[in-house]
């Protein structure tokens, strides 16, 4: 049923009709009419952040933890430009979010008006699509289409720029209906290619599943199908940083995360496999290492909903364009109908090889002395929280890699981290978004002190909305990953990779009215973590850790998977000049 209403009311009505329950935002001159409508309703909760970047990361966290698109509302000019980092982050990690920006009135666009910015121009390369709506009559249609574009195919961020006069004017509202636009990405895979893959599965001697964020984006059903396929075939499985949780870490066939700081067994198996089945991953440079030495002996199948991912970096022998869930369903169907065959004898040999690599125990460490090692802090956090209804966010750096290595993820949508863009400052606001989606859950942001300070203002948000997010800061007073690279690549010249004048985190927490905990003694750690978990409210946990710890294992830049460094020994000079230009 169509109705007449103002553009501002349309925005709120369209969000309600799209099933939105939470909006993260920050008001300003160009969105006041929409805020006025928000004031006059109770269906949508608005979370007032302290910086627009925080709004976008919170929406990302919400989207990743709930599987629903996240929504942000910010003003024109600086409001929109502050959203750019979050938009780019969501684009790189394929996270569906809808960002609504206010704009100066249409008749002032182009006049360098107060708080005017060319928002659609600035955000064109960092959104999946964006719109400037110049007529109130088209506003509701655009908003509904924006939800379709954000979630269909490979998900991503979209932005709608709404001039203030369009918000004030009255127009016709149309309720959502199934999208009839030409944008309808293909979800079913080509059956011929799927059959070719099944034939390869039947005969493979050293197969491996290499899964990514696409499995999570495809929905919980895709993770279920993946588990069924992995367990039925008995093939080993590894995952990218983005895909953790799609197969349980406690699963029998799990070999751990792969890539630059992935597990030895996962990377060695990738290097030596004869059939690589890439499901919803994109051969990112953190994964492949040196391209010309990447898994030289394998036939590569690549399942991806985005045709541009296929053959972008690594040539696929069996390309399958389609949604992971649909394709997995068809693979299982065909494989079962052909008699559920695998090469059992070869598989036993392959697993015994993998078990040899596992025996290296690449994550082993010793907690000695009175200084907490970061690995120990995470191992204890894992032990004390794994039985909780737990969601983990991270910032970016060493702590992020340690969290991926030492925490176990049993289910999808429980791990929120900035993978593609590597955005320091992501984790804290993301944890706020996650907590909004799951009010009763234990939400922990594993952070470094430097990353955490990048969006520390959001402590105000957590307090105002009573969101009991736990900020677990591994404080080494260093930009740990930068420091590690300077040690390996730049002759131990630690140029600007440590912070002086760090705050007293306990006092900082208290200044916002939150709880602060400091812990420096390994013997006190368990009690301190328990205190953090049981406190009903936001906690800032300042965990003072070893300052010079490096993150291992590591594939140095420009090296292949089978050239991993396992520890401190002889790290100098391993990266040659060609490798050192890589990031």
């Amino acid at each position, binding site marked *: 049923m169509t109705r007449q209403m103002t553009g501002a009311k349309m925005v709120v009505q369209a969000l309600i009709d799209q099933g939105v329950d939470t909006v993260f935002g920050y008001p300003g001159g160009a969105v006041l009419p929409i805020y006025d409508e928000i004031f006059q309703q109770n269906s949508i909760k608005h979370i007032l952040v302290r910086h627009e970047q925080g709004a976008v990361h919170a929406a990302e966290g919400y989207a990743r933890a709930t599987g629903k698109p996240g929504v942000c509302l910010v003003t024109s000019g600086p409001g929109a430009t502050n959203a750019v980092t979050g938009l780019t982050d969501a684009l790189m990690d394929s996270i569906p979010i809808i960002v609504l920006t206010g704009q100066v009135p249409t008749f002032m666009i182009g006049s360098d008006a107060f708080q005017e910015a060319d928002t659609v*121009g600035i955000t*064109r390369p960092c959104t999946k*699509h964006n719109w*400037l709506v110049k007529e109130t009559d088209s506003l509701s249609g655009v908003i509904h289409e924006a939800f379709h574009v954000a979630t269909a195919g490979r998900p991503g961020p979209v932005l709608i720029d709404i001039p203030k006069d369009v918000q004030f004017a009255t127009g016709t509202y149309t309720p959502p209906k199934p999208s009839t636009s*030409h944008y309808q990405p293909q979800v079913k895979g080509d059956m011929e290619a799927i059959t070719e893959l099944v034939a390869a599965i039947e005969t493979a001697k050293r197969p491996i599943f290499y899964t990514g964020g696409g499995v999570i984006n495809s929905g919980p059903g895709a993770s279920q199908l993946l588990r069924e396929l992995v367990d039925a075939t008995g093939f080993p499985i590894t995952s990218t940083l983005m895909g953790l949780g799609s197969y349980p870490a406690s699963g029998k066939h799990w070999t751990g995360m792969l890539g630059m700081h992935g597990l030895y067994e996962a990377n060695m198996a990738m290097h030596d496999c004869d059939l690589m089945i890439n499901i919803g991953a994109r051969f990112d440079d953190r994964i492949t290492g040196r391209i010309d030495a990447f898994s030289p002996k394998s036939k590569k199948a690549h399942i991806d909903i985005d045709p*541009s991912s296929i*053959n972008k970096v690594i040539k696929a022998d069996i390309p399958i364009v389609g949604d992971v869930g649909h394709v997995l369903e068809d693979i299982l169907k065909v494989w079962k109908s052909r008699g559920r065959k695998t090469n059992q004898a070869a598989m036993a040999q392959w697993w015994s090889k993998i078990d040899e690599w596992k025996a290296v125990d690449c994550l082993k460490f010793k907690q000695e002395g009175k200084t907490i090692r970061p690995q120990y802090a995470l191992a204890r956090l894992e032990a004390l929280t794994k039985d909780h209804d737990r969601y983990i966010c991270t910032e970016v750096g060493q702590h992020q890699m340690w969290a991926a290595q030492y925490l176990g993820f049993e289910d999808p949508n429980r791990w929120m981290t900035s993978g593609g863009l590597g955005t320091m400052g992501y984790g804290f606001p993301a944890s706020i978004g996650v907590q909004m989606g799951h009010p009763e859950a234990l939400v922990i942001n594993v952070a470094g002190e430097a990353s955490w300070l990048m969006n520390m203002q959001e402590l105000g948000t957590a307090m105002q909305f009573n969101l009991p997010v736990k900020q677990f800061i591994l404080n080494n007073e260093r930009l740990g990953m930068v420091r590690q690279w300077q040690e390996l690549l730049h002759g131990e010249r630690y140029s600007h990779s440590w912070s002086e004048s760090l705050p007293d985190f306990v006092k900082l927490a208290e200044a916002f009215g939150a709880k602060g905990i400091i812990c420096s003694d390994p013997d006190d750690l368990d009690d301190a973590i328990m205190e953090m978990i049981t406190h009903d409210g936001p906690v800032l946990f300042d965990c003072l850790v070893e300052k010079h710890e490096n993150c291992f294992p590591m594939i140095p830049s420009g090296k292949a998977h089978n050239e991993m460094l396992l520890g401190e020994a002889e790290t100098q000079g391993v990266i040659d000049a060609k490798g050192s230009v890589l990031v």
Partner: protein
Amino acid sequence: MSALKIKKGSTSHSAYNLRPTFSDVEERHTLAVLVENEPGVLARVIGLFSGRGYNIESLTVAEVDHTGHLSRITIVTAGTPQVIEQIKAQLGRIVSVHEVHDLTVEGPSVERELAMFKVAGQGDKRVEALRLADIFRANVVDSTLESFIFEITGAPDKIDAFADLMHPLGLVEVARTGVAALPRGD
């Protein structure tokens, strides 16, 4: 596009070239991109090329279907087969893009470009310019006692050839539209 497929009807290379997908030989391709005719759509397309470091040799754009709100962008680009394949896939995932056609591999096609040349000179040079224009079927669209403007339509290499001939005869200014192309037959 699979590896080692024999290329059909290329306009710039032999029709019998073998083209492995990951070859490092650069090829010139003409792409026809049908897009929603809406503000910013050209910026999306050229932003893709600049942002990802692809070449644009020429580009033409105009609305071709008023009722369907469709514009046709014809892009001549160069790159290795892998890059060309990426360009097409990347264009295809722009939400405003309806269709992407690689006219260089999809079959025989016709490419045309319009150009205008201003040539200034007197005496023999002026006569020679006019004679050459006649040979190239260029039209005189403006004339003064000291200059001509020639209008010429043709494949890009014909226009290049005409430009080379006009240079010593007093070529002052050139305007070219870039390539428009259509597949042959139905």
